């Protein structure tokens, strides 16, 4: 199997390229727009081409012998121009691909459309963020172009990606090592929507080998890792002594008390309401004061006033999840092997 990776300069793309070549023994070729990232691919001996993605003749020539193209790109630029860029890029790619080959678009779990700050995954008919809107547009375009050019088209909605070259990993590690005690928003057994890079590499093989039918999938660890498993992995992997406390804060959306919302709305007017309204209604005033004190106690008990370590999207996605090997021991071995090999190569190249 020959795999082409577009956008291999991304953190995920670069890691997947390594794992496909070195751990899964797949023939890989990476395509970059700029030569800045070349050093990484030379270091790891991964074949690389610098290409202009609008040069169809060159693309056709480069794609000729490939079985699958994986696209990790997300165009930069102003928001209003991104959809156009995506369509133009995808059209160029599909039109240059051999028929009966496969195309895998790396979408995001954000495509479910949750509003910012939403703690639980849910499928929203109308996406609540522009990023989700754009990702869904890209997914739809991929499906259309797949039909048009007779290419098996896959969209993989990837969860939060972990792995030692990912910025998420740095953030987790830093926050865990800087604090003796950390607070995680959620219960230990809450399901996370996370995935390690090795699972992405395996999913690509699965799609390209037609183990999965073309379509849109979610790619998170299956079985999903719990919050406890995720944080314990970091603690063990980096040999940390941090104590972790799992304390759920905000309830699920929809469970919010309407009365609380009303109170929140009128909070800035409290002195006015007290003066001109509640002073005339002693029974209501007393009842409200009692409720206020009780809620205050509840708030102070629910969670220490310390920032949560990270934002984790919890719950079970509704879309099909691609099955890969997500066993903790397997992930551990893959990660540590990759990290050791990579660091030894860096050390060897430092002059």
């Amino acid at each position: 199997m020959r795999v082409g990776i577009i956008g291999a300069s991304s953190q995920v793309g670069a890691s997947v390229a390594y794992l496909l070549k070195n751990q899964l023994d797949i023939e890989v070729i990476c395509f970059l727009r700029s030569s800045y990232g070349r050093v990484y691919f030379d270091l790891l001996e991964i074949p690389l081409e610098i290409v202009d993605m609008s040069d169809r003749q060159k693309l056709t020539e480069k794609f000729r012998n490939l079985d699958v193209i994986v696209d990790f790109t997300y165009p930069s630029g102003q928001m209003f121009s991104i959809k156009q860029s995506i369509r133009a890029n995808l059209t160029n790619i599909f039109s240059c691909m051999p028929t009966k080959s496969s195309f895998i678009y790396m979408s995001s779990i954000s495509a479910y459309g949750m509003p910012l700050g939403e703690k639980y995954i849910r499928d929203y008919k109308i996406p609540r963020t522009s990023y989700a809107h754009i990702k869904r547009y890209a997914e739809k375009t991929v499906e259309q172009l797949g039909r048009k050019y007779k290419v098996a088209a896959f969209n993989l909605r990837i969860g939060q990606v972990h792995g030692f070259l990912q910025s998420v990993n740095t953030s987790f590690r830093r926050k865990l090592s800087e604090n003796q005690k950390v607070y995680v928003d959620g219960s230990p057994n809450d399901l996370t929507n996370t995935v390690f890079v090795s699972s992405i590499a395996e999913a690509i093989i699965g799609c390209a080998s037609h183990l999965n039918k073309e379509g849109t999938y979610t790619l998170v660890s299956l079985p999903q890792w719990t919050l406890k498993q995720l944080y314990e992995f970091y603690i063990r992997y980096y040999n940390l002594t941090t104590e972790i406390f799992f304390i759920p804060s905000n309830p699920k959306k929809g469970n919010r008390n309407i009365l609380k919302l009303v109170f929140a709305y009128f909070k800035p007017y409290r002195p006015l309401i007290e003066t001109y309204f509640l002073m005339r209604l002693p029974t209501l005033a007393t009842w409200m004061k009692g409720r206020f004190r009780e809620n205050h106690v509840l708030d102070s008990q629910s969670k220490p006033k310390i920032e949560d370590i990270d934002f984790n999207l919890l719950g079970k996605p509704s879309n099909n999840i691609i099955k890969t090997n997500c066993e903790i021991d397997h992930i551990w071995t893959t990660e540590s092997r990759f990290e050791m090999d990579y660091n030894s190569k860096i050390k060897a190249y430092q002059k």
Partner: protein
Amino acid sequence: MENSHLPVLNRIDEVSVSWIYDRNVERSRLLSRMYRIPFILEASLEKRLGEIDVCLITIPYGARKRHIELCASYNIGIYVEKPFATSVNEHNYYCALFPSYKLAVGFQRRYYSSLAKLSTIISSQLFGKLNQIEFKQGNFSLKGGGGYLSNVDLAGGGVIIESAIHILDQLLIATNSSEVHVNTVKSILKEGIDYDSIFSSEFNTPLGNVVVNCEVSTLRNLENGIELIFDNARIKCQLSPITKFNVRSNYNSDLSFYLEQLEIPDTADSIISSFSVFWQKYLCALREKDGNLTQGKSSLLTTSWIEQIYKHTR
């Protein structure tokens, strides 16, 4: 430019942005619409320099020389984005073209609140003499920033000159150093661009010599931050606008606490406010024909450090 200078300048009463110019006309048009500022084309650039008091230059290092010289010939003030120069000679050449108060370099992070605090901790010898600094900056990224980062003539170098230079400059300021010597450098370099470097240097400061060990990488994620080793304690912190100073005793590793950061006037507690403080100070310097914290000459030592590092690698 888009996210920092222009919104800040548009909010300063005494400033009117006359025009913007970008070689990419689409980009000029976009910024023009975004900030209600007219844009000009290359043909009229030289003529229009005569209309302004200050020129803000944020194009890549390698494309600036002609523009800097042109501004000097019009005797106008100038702000030049970092990296300003890759050698002491080049640095001095540019400085000689302008009265010192008219030339500012993009080291606005010198106004960070955290830096002012750190300078006080060091100069007061609160924890004894500073002996050593460990600095790590490693964020895995292979993105070429529109292509110019992969061209050494345009970028001047790699991640050290493009990004770590801010912290290197801040370390020199915090320690009030008068000289810097690079002792060893190990680096992964490709076509003149550094990607991963480990280098050891020594500062001469009014309170004695300080060993400075740095690790800067775009190929590895590192435990980013700086650690200062004093006679009596070690302090860990970031050099972000505001930071927590984690102090640990050298004699009892269980004794650790955070230093509170008091508000220091005329400093910045966010990236965007560092631009505001910079412009206020620079405009004040122009009015009073006086020096300011980011004037060209004041970063000569930073350029010297950069020049020595790259000399070792190439």
